[in-house]
């Protein structure tokens, strides 16, 4: 079936360091991939999205590239800030379905 896997539950980094949050997916249909971010006590919000193979998409300093060959859509940032501390969800929408499947989430904590 359709699914999303995020391997890191918790990531703790020092401000200014780079980060990569892993996301892999499984579907037999053309994939639409998303990253949502949820700050403490807030609703999840869309961070970025892509359906184009091998094209980098960027927003607010974060970037990700959909690689269909490896079924991956990892989220990266070159220099994390304290305000990046949040819960990050990867999500998949198979092309045949108007529903998003979410991964289990990665909690990113950025320390001074």
């Amino acid at each position: 079936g359709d699914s999303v896997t995020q391997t890191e539950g918790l990531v703790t980094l020092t401000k200014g360091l780079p980060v990569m949050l892993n996301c892999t997916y499984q579907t037999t249909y053309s994939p639409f991939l998303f990253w949502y971010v949820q700050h403490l006590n807030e609703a999840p919000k869309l961070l970025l999205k892509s359906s184009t193979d091998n094209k980098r998409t960027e927003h607010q300093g974060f970037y990700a590239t959909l690689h269909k060959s490896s079924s991956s859509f990892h989220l990266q940032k070159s220099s994390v800030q304290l305000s990046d501390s949040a819960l990050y969800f990867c999500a998949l929408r198979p092309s045949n379905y108007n529903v998003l499947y979410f991964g289990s989430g990665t909690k990113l904590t950025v320390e001074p």
Partner: protein
Amino acid sequence: EAAVTQSPRNKVAVTGGKVTLSCNQTNNHNNMYWYRQDTGHGLRLIHYSYGAGSTEKGDIPDGYKASRPSQENFSLILELATPSQTSVYFCASGDAKGNTLYFGAGTRLSVL
């Protein structure tokens, strides 16, 4: 910006009681969704709707019913609440393609 409003924001219920969570959207989106969020599980889809009068089962529908009486309103109903339904519930609306979801602020439900 798109607006999704959930009520109540917090709810304490007794085991065996009936609970209704309400969601209203002013985005004129056809699609609406109910997710629950639990640590380690991410966001899991309970029910969704493609328009007024329609409801569909998501991945974890057992113990929940849904109602979509109008384009704007989508309710989640727990007929016989159980402690295992203690969670944070998010409602979301999405465009016809289901690509971008707009989430409400969430309802924290405790079933004692």
